């Protein structure tokens, strides 16, 4: 029986994989079926995960279900905000659901502001400061590329001045730096996607068709 379910799983996986891949030809009934199964099962799966992780694992376990003396009060804040979200179900009090949204957006902005300021601005500037005089010729070249690339890139993202004249030239150089970086990144990522495709082919020809020993 165990073997039956294992084989069933492999067959189901193979059929659904082929159903999704068939989209490369055109939209068809197999793709529609695979899409509907994927969307339906994943939506249900995430509902269960969120319920057990948040409602049971975080809220219930720390409040009503907590051991004596270990009860926490702060999960109630999340619970109340969650209940306020349900106010959307009523036309009369639907506006209340904006409060938890405002809380999420405001808290996020406040929390991330300093994190991004330090990691995306200050640390980047500190890391870019490198001497032009170093031991190897390539090191000097690297330092020049980094300094010029970062400054020209920043000029491109400078919105207060029209990109004209020397300033525009620097901005154009900045976008060249960006495009060369994107090109390199494109090739690198495509190769990593190839490994995903090989994984699927390995499943189809190995686990399913058993053509790979």
């Amino acid at each position, binding site marked *: 029986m165990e073997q039956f379910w294992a084989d069933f799983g492999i067959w189901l996986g193979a059929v659904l994989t082929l159903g999704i891949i068939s989209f490369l030809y055109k939209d068809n009934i197999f793709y529609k079926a695979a899409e509907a199964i994927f969307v339906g099962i994943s939506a249900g799966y995430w509902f269960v995960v969120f319920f057990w992780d948040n409602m049971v694992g975080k809220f219930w376990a720390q409040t009503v279900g907590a051991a004596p003396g270990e009860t926490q009060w702060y999960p109630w804040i999340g619970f109340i905000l969650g209940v306020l979200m349900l106010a959307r179900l009523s036309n009369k009090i639907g506006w209340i659901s904006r409060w938890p949204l405002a809380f999420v957006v405001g808290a996020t*902005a406040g929390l991330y502001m300093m994190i991004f300021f330090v990691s995306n601005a200050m640390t980047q500037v500190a890391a870019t400061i490198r001497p032009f005089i170093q031991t190897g010729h390539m090191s000097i070249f690297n330092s020049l590329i980094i300094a010029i690339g970062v400054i020209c890139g920043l000029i491109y993202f400078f919105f207060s001045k029209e990109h004209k004249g020397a300033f525009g030239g620097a901005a154009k150089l900045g976008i060249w730096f960006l495009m060369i970086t994107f090109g390199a990144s494109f090739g690198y990522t495509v190769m990593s996607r190839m490994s995903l495709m090989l994984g699927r082919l390995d499943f189809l020809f190995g686990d399913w068709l058993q053509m790979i020993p």
Partner: protein
Amino acid sequence: MKKRIIAIACAILCFFTVPIMGQDAEQVTETLSAPLPAPITELTAGNYVYDDGGRIDLSWAKSADDPANITGYVLYRARKGAAFEKIADLLPGTEKYRDESVEDDIAYRYRVGTVNEAGETLSEETPAVIATWEFFNFHKLNILILALIVCGSVLFFIASAKSGRKLFIRKIGGLEALEEAVGRATEMGRPILFIPGILDMDDVQTLAAITILGKVSRVVADYDSKIMMPVSRSLVMTSARETIKESYLTAGRPDAYNDDMVQYVTDEQFGYVAAINGIMVREKPATCLYLGAFFAESLILAETGNSIGAIQIAGTARPGQLPFFVAACDYTLIGEELFAASAYLSGDPKQLGSLKGQDVGKIIAMAGILLGTLAMTFSVAWDVSFFNLLLDILNSIFITN
């Protein structure tokens, strides 16, 4: 004859082995009689400053026998009036330790034992030291100052914009095409597909996407076009519905608004992508907008949009996905252009002011890089004190602890 050969062999064996065995014996004797190691010196203990308490920093000068004749160090701690107890075994070469298992406002004394095979030599005790918490972390003063300068600039420009001063913002390519793309969809009688990425409302890119959605849906309402927005997060669904509803109200067409314009699909990344691909090939939107945080799905979406002949405008701050959008879309908002877009489109003084304020931050960054690189180069080449000083100042500004 055989006995003689064996006797000679034994004699030769003894000739070589006995001295070796003797040597071993001498070594063992030497080890057993090895002196105790020299103690560590200059042991100091102090409260770790500018923290929330619970930490004491210790430092010392290594034993004179470190590393040749010691096996390690042992750290002892005693509460006031109590006996010393071992809290850590440390490797040879160790010269500092941070004790993070102390309680605030309790006096502790420390001593360090230097250990080898012969035994342990204890150092002098430290004076009693207390861990305390401090309200302000002066190690991060530079972050505060820079943040105040940038935030101050933002506030200044917001005030300027509110007072009626016109703030210049340069044209952003992709945004100029936005209204044209909505108009095209209206002319063709096909919908506009708006994808806000796959992250939740706690991501700044999703926030930017929702802000742009406000402007797009306003144009959609004005043109009496149709917008479709499948989402992968429930909070994004709620926010998007609120935003579109408000746009329709502002346009004076509340009756045309429908909650089904925004639909939740699934939280699963590729399930969401499979559903969007299906929507694209069946509904054939004339315009596809991908604005927000995207991951591996970016190229799948953009290629499908390309295959149906839709005009595509993308925007994300994720460097790994930008190449795919640049390759497959008509216009791409790169990184900060996505955030600038919301300010540019809205024309709201607050947003325009914040954009101008951020430009001040960029000027500071560029000046820092330029000065820092030159100062470091001259400092390395000629060791000039002025440049060393300049480098120290820049380090204290930009390096975070």
